[in-house]
């Protein structure tokens, strides 16, 4: 277990190192001169040169990367060009809303996906199954921004049930979490359905029935846990999918998380923030997968960690 953890962590560090190389390389190519952004329009070439030197932009590339990595290891994500503040605290302050949103979205997609999938599996081939699966396809097929705007239009504008975006209370959370979670819910309902159908074919389900168990208990007690296994791995991957999703959703709903920060940073090409968010996102994705791998053996004792 510990050895496994150590190896997985080492692999994760390697991935993160790769991310840092790629991130650094890509941002280097982006044609937005930070000096121009900082120096302002009245600056003289001398001042611009000064700033260039301060930022270390006049050094050779490998040295810049080494410096970048050195600071990164110490948790220093650099300083934003546009926001004139350290990226680390900036991201840290934006992280809780995003994590809250992602957590709520995961809950939402599980709450939508699992029951729908179980229902469809239990009604396999019948009308209820077909309706559930077509709906799930529809939810998978809807782009986030279309869905977000539609929900906002219906529930916040026309019906006034929920606030028109913003942050603070549970009611603010519902629509963005739903927007983010609905597509995942569609995925999960499909996965849960096929997984459950697969599991319900198993001999031990027959054994459970032969014990005289009511069908709902057979499904929940013997089916769910086994059918849940493939989903666990997906939840780990969700973090990555959501990292892209929050950029869109946080903007539609005015949610003050790192997605919004990223969006604004992309618009202004604020490279330190882009790199910082990328790095933090990569950490979370890697962490998400790691946690998923750690949870799997709890659900299925056959999986050993090695």
């Amino acid at each position, binding site marked *: 277990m510990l050895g496994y953890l150590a190896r997985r962590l080492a*692999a994760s560090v*390697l*991935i*993160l190192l*790769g*991310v840092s190389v*790629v*991130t650094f390389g*890509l*941002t280097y*190519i*982006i*044609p937005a001169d930070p000096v121009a952004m900082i120096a302002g329009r009245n600056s003289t070439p001398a001042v611009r040169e000064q700033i260039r030197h301060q930022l270390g932009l006049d050094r050779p590339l490998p040295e810049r990367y080494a410096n970048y990595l050195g600071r990164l290891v110490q948790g220093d994500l650099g300083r934003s060009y546009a926001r004139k503040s350290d990226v680390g605290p900036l991201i840290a302050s934006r992280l809780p809303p995003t994590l809250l949103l992602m957590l709520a979205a995961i809950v939402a997609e599980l709450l939508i996906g699992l029951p729908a999938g179980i229902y469809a599996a239990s009604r396999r081939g019948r009308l209820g199954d*077909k309706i559930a*699966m*077509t709906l799930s*396809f*529809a939810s*998978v*097929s*809807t*782009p*986030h*921004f*279309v869905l977000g*705007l*539609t929900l*906002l*239009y219906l529930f916040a*504008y026309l019906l006034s049930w929920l606030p028109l975006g913003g942050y603070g209370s549970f009611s603010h959370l519902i629509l963005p979490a739903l927007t983010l979670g609905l597509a995942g819910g569609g995925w999960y309902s499909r996965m849960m359905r096929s997984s459950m159908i697969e599991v319900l074919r198993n001999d031990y389900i027959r054994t459970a029935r032969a014990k005289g168990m009511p069908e709902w208990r057979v499904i929940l007690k013997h089916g769910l846990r086994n059918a849940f296994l493939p989903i666990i791995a997906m939840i780990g*991957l969700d973090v*990555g999918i959501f*990292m*892209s999703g929050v*950029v*869109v959703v946080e903007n539609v709903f005015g949610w003050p998380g790192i997605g919004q920060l*990223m969006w604004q940073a*992309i*618009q202004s*090409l604020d490279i330190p923030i*882009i790199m910082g*968010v*990328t790095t933090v*996102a*990569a950490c979370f*994705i*890697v962490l998400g*997968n790691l946690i998923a791998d750690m949870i799997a053996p709890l659900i299925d004792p056959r999986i050993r960690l090695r």
Partner: protein
Amino acid sequence: MIDFWNRFRRDRLAVYSLGVIALFVSAAILASTFAPYDPSEQFFDGLTLEGSPLPPSGRFWFGTDTNGRDQFSRLLYGAQTSLLIGIVANGIAVFIGAGLGLVAGYVRGLVGAAIMRFTDLMMAFPPLLLAIALAAILKPGLNIVILVIALVNWVQIARVIYAETVALSEREYIEAARAMGAGTGRILLRHLLPHLVPTVIVYATLGIATTVLLEATLSFLGRGVQPPTPAWGMMIFESQSYFLNAPWLVFIPGAAILILALSFNLVGDGLRDALDPTQRGRS
């Protein structure tokens, strides 16, 4: 083939969806015939005196956009772009993903590990950044969109195909082929690939929606299709803030994306069933 069609035909939803796709494709091909106006023409009277877009009317069936252009014509021409991106770009992504997943899943060892670590790396990486950087090297436009989507969308399918290939490689008939003296290439192409086709098709069709979304995001960031070329995602993004006051600007192209993606998904589902006569059979 006839057999296959007969199986496919049983899924009525898939057949209707195929019809819808055919409709979209012909609309895209024949856009210049059907479109009442030039999609780029900005009518001076295409906006109200106060500069607001016009709602659907007899003259502009789907209303006008914020530049006073005919939205119906733009939707038809936009189908060209969106379908091209959805099919070509996504197709390339599927090709890359399936190829890498297949090789990594069967060959394993160093090559397989290298491919999968690279996949992990890509998973941990926001596509938008990649898009921006690519556009920095290349001129933005349709080619960028296709390239970016191809480079971004392959990751998930590679993982899925990898997992399936690993499972398939354990099957006895693979061992049997090796015992006969079959080389790696033959096993990959003749014995593994045919079994992966259903998965590939499902993911290829599911990728359409993501693809159109990515196109929209890229266009918005100036990395995608450049104005005035219409593309559905861009049409929505351009008028996103109008969704309360001119909902047709958002919801008509939104519905087009939804219907197209849904149709592709349903067809993919139908194809998967039709392609798998054994219905998984044994083992």
